[in-house]
Each structure stands twice: as structure tokens, then as C-alpha cells.
């Protein structure tokens, strides 16, 4: 590709103001000495100029209001979701604290009665595992019940 052809390829971009300053300088120098490229650049400029002035289609006011309403609803829904998540974290933390605290009570009570029935029953780790499993089971049942209820609510909505 000759030097001339290389510059000629840049003319459309020059009209679009899309050249680097170095390229712009080189093109300007070439155009000063090349009538054909000067004419070609002159042909690109009106098109670029008209493209910048094309009428802007306007969205309807209904569209704006409707978009805002939907986006606001989404934002509110997200805020509620975040709030629910925070509450869930607090509830889970509280449940764990409660379980550990109740374990201490359970141990005292079961230790007394268990040792009367069977001395092995008061074994700390086995009892704690059984107690934890009971806690998870209760949590699982609660989660299933909540999910069933949520599905019912969604169906009604």
C-alpha cells in the first residue's frame, strides 16, 4: 500500500475526529499537498457533520414514568431482600447462641437424671452430637415449613 493510499484510508476517520493527534497532523500535511485527498476529505465532512445533527428520537413520558415505577419497585424489593438477609443472619447467630446456652442447661439436667439411669449417657460428646442433630433437625423442619408457606403465598400473589 502506497503512502497516498494509507492516508486516503484515514480520511473518513479524520472527518469523524477519530484520529490521534499525530495521525491528524500527518493527514493534514498530506492533504495540503494532495488535491485528490483534499477533495475526498471535503466529501466526507458534510456526511460527518449531518450525522452529528440527526434528530434525536424522544422516549415518551409514559415510558419514563413506567420505567421509574418498575425500577423503584425493584429497588424496594432489593432493600427488603437485604433486610431479610440481615435478619436471617441475626436469627441464625441467635439460634446458635441459644443452642449452646441450652446445651449447658441440658447437660446439667440430663447429667443428673442420666447418671441415675445409665452412667454412659452423660458422655459429653455423644450427648452434644445428639443435641446438635436435634437442633439441625428442628431447623430443617422449620425451613421446609417456611418454604411451603412461601410457595403458597407466591401462588396466591
Amino acid at each position, binding site marked *: 500500500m502506497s503512502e497516498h493510499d494509507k492516508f486516503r484510508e484515514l480520511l*473518513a*476517520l479524520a472527518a469523524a475526529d477519530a484520529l490521534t493527534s499525530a495521525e491528524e497532523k500527518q493527514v493534514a500535511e498530506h492533504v495540503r499537498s494532495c488535491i485528490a485527498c483534499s477533495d475526498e476529505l471535503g466529501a466526507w465532512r458534510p456526511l*460527518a457533520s*449531518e*450525522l452529528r*445533527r440527526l*434528530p434525536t*428520537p*424522544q422516549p415518551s413520558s409514559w415510558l419514563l414514568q413506567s420505567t421509574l415505577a418498575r425500577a423503584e419497585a425493584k*429497588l424496594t424489593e432489593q432493600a427488603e431482600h437485604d433486610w431479610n438477609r440481615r435478619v436471617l443472619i441475626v436469627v441464625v447467630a441467635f439460634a446458635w447462641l441459644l443452642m449452646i446456652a441450652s446445651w449447658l442447661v441440658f447437660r446439667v439436667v440430663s447429667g443428673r437424671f442420666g447418671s441415675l439411669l445409665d452412667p454412659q449417657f452423660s458422655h459429653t460428646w455423644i450427648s452434644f452430637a445428639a443435641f446438635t442433630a436435634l437442633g439441625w433437625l428442628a431447623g430443617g423442619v422449620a425451613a421446609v415449613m417456611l418454604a411451603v408457606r412461601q410457595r403458597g403465598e407466591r401462588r396466591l400473589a
Partner: protein
Amino acid sequence: MAVDADVVRLRRGDLNALSELITRYQNRLYRYLLRMVRQPAEAEDLFQQTWLRVVEKIRSFDASRNFDAWLFTLARNLAIDHLRRIRPQSLDEPLANSWQSETVADRIPCKDHTPLDHALAAERRTEISEAMAGLPMMYREVLTLRFEDEMKIEEIAQVTAVPVSTVKSRLRRSLEQLRYALEARYPGGTWQ
């Protein structure tokens, strides 16, 4: 780069900030989507979807980055998904019906021009718009981002997720195709 206060407020869940942003970007975003999909009803739907996506993703947006580029990238992805879904055979089938509409500002006569000049200019722009609508999507896109949204080449590269050199090459080809299309439609050079 200055951090956009409305964007920061929206990240905190401020509804007024959302309203400000929608108002600020309404024309640019709608025009971009309309140039992409060419159908007003589809552009309206995508306009709504874009703002819903903004609300969904605003927390993952880095406020020190360019919001314009991020917004147009979201809109672009939605538009491309939409076009793939509804027109899987070809993304660039030219449509016969024109979507063009004028603004009030376009109808205000300029002091330096006669009504005839104004009418001719309006006609010329309609011709260019129609020719532009017949170009492939990636060419329409680069033209609207460069000339109507006045984005820099680097910003267009961000929105379209391609290198700067590709944007330049697309821009050059889109201008060439537009010029050929206009010359083919109006052999006497009446569009000029």
C-alpha cells in the same frame, strides 16, 4: 475521573438518584437502543430492562469508573440478546418502515437559514437516517456512539468490548458503507 454523585447515591438505594439518572440519560439511551433494534416498541422494552439491570447491578459497579460506558454496555448486551432471540437468522436484516421522529428543537427555524434550507436539511437527515438503518448492527452502533453520543473511540471500545483499532476500522467501514448506500439511493448526490 470525578465520581458521579447520583451513581453513589443510587448505590445507597436512593430513589431520587435513580430518577435523576433516568432523566439525564433518557434521550441518549433510548436513541442508542432504537438505532440498535430499529423498532420503537422493542427499544422501549429494552430501555426499561436496562434500568432494571442497572438497579440490580449497581452495587457491583465501581463508582470511580465511567458510568456512561457501563450503562451502554448493559444496554448493548440486552439488545444483542434480544436480537439473537427474535431474529436468530440475521441480526442485520434491513427493515422497511422508518422509525424517525423529530425533536421540537429540530423544528425551530435557524435565523441564518430560510425555511427552504431548513426543509432541505431535514430531508437530508431523514435520508441519512434511513440509509443508516439499512447498515449492519455493528456499523449502526459505532456511528451512533461516535456521532450522536459523541463518545471517544476509547469509550466506544469499552462499550463494545473490542480493541480501539477494531473500533476505528468499524467506524471507517461504517462511514464508507453509509456513503455508498447514500450514493446508491441518491445517484445525483441529492443527500449532500
